[in-house]
């Protein structure tokens, strides 16, 4: 069984985030009528989703359902063709990506998007640096530097301490996925988008992942995209099903699992 681990999200960050979160009433993440067209192709159409602060939502659907496009719109990789996106009440629709991150949004990627030529320590350090001050600092950090310390803590929390000075390109696949998660937990995240975090993991690694996700502090809400129904339905308290770029059904995991239409389209065919 996994040992009690160091707090992934530090108390100081947690209270800061909680304070921010409690000020705004209403939803943590709110999408209204979001549509994204690529030429004539509608990757997502008229998607309306509301996620409350601290809620754990799974977005499921077959390939091409528009899940990753949805994430890309929320993080700001591209602007939606129409619709609005609100994070904790603030309209982020036209914000550049880095502004959204600085408001507490985080994301992991389906295919690990890491800095292969840098060490694990540097990757995590960058993640911690990105949401703090001193990003343009031309001063080398002192040994007692807060950001460096934070980075070390985070590395420890995802059990990568021994690999701290290893090049990311030399890590195993599972370790890289762990690192992806660590990057998303840097700073004071308020809402995280997990894009297929369980892809390619062994059963043990998958259990660890579930443990990490379930163990996240209550104030952090997240959306998880997954093909692995097992993982998704265990860590989520509500489910949104997408099909052909539209929201097809919403409900609790039990409702979705037992829904006849969903079974016909997805669950009958086994795991993706």
């Amino acid at each position, binding site marked *: 069984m996994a040992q009690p681990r160091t707090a992934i999200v530090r108390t100081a960050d947690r209270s800061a985030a909680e304070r921010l979160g409690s000020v705004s009433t209403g939803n943590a993440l709110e999408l209204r009528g979001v549509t994204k067209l690529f030429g004539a192709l509608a990757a997502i159409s008229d998607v309306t989703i509301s996620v409350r602060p601290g809620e754990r939502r799974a977005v499921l659907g077959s390939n091409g359902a528009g899940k990753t496009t949805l994430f890309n719109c929320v*993080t700001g990789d591209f602007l939606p063709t129409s619709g609005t996106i609100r994070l904790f009440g603030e309209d982020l629709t036209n914000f550049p990506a880095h502004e959204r991150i600085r408001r507490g949004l985080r994301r992991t990627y389906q295919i690990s*998007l890491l800095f*292969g030529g*840098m060490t694990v320590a540097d990757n995590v350090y960058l993640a911690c640096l990105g*949401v703090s001050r001193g990003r343009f*600092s031309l001063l*080398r950090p002192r040994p007692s530097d807060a*950001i460096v310390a934070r980075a070390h803590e985070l590395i420890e929390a995802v059990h990568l301490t021994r690999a701290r000075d290893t090049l990311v390109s030399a890590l195993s696949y599972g370790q890289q996925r762990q690192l992806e998660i660590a990057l998303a937990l840097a700073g004071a995240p308020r809402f995280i988008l997990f894009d297929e975090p369980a892809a390619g993991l062994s059963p043990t690694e998958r259990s660890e992942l579930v443990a990490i996700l379930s163990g996240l502090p209550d104030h952090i809400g997240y959306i998880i995209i997954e093909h692995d129904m097992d993982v998704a339905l265990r860590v989520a308290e509500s489910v949104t099903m997408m099909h052909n770029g539209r929201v097809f059904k919403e409900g609790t995991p039990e409702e979705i699992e037992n829904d006849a239409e969903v079974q016909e389209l997805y669950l009958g065919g086994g795991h993706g």
Partner: protein
Amino acid sequence: MADVLPTVAPRKSLLALERIPAPVWVLGLLLLAMPAFASNFVLFQIFGWSFILGMIALSLMVLAGYGGMVSLIQMTVAALAGYVVAILGTSGVTQISLGWPWWLYIPLAILIATVFGTLVGALGVRTEGIYTIMITLAIAAAFFYFTRQNYGIFNGYTGFNNVIPPAWFGVDWRQAVPFYYMTLACAVLSYLAVMWMSRTPFGLALQGVRDNPRRMAALGFSVTAHRIVAYTFASAIAAVGGILLVWQNAQVTPGTAGIPQVIDILVIAVVGGLKRPIGPFIGALIYAILSVFASDILHAIGMSGERFKLVVGLGFLAVVGFSPDGVLGLWDKYQARREANRDPLLGGGR
């Protein structure tokens, strides 16, 4: 992907003198003692020029190697700094030069050139990487044509002559030995500055932006802002190089930043190697030696001494074709082969 990117290393000791490897000591001593056995010509025309060109090419290397942006504006930035020195200081063109003191015109020259470089960066960084070459080349050309046509400020085709360094401590800094040490000091300082920068949070973030701008944005970094600040840092170095250049030539003309000169800086940086800051200086040394001895070499193989550009072009093509990482790339491959030949059981260095 040859190099391990330097980690943001917490400072241990200030200078870490004990960690400087032996070859660097040897090189350092050699450079310091050079005036003892090199002629004035070699000191001034080959080393001095190499240090200057190396600094300007270093400015390009910072943007290309650490920032992933190949910019052709560096020579223009340098020339602008030279022009400001000529315009605000003293020159042979007395109707334009203002004759201000050096402690005014030198900082102003660096400032103005750096601001110019930053503005160019701001214009160029929002588009795909390969556009940067085009945009900076076009702006460099505009500068060239403008300075050539403008007589009120830039004195047009003729430019400014008799631009010499101030007589600090009563020394004529254009004499071979003082000039050598002055340019050596500037080159070393800029080299150290770049090495330092690469291990700072900013430097690490810049390299992150180079490697994966999408990921950096998703970590909260403003990619555009980082790139622009990189231009500022690089332009400052080029500006200092430009001041030294105008002193060396004792003149500045539109031709100082003509298109061939602008491209030559790229050639120097690429031939030397864009991966580490020593590369541009290696490239500059090769270029300076070739320039000086080209006609002799050409005569030796029976060609007219005028075909220098042909030699440069063919050499450049050879480098890009066979060793795109330049001389540094060749060196790295050589080192890698030596490591591979060593017995793995006995271990090697890192």
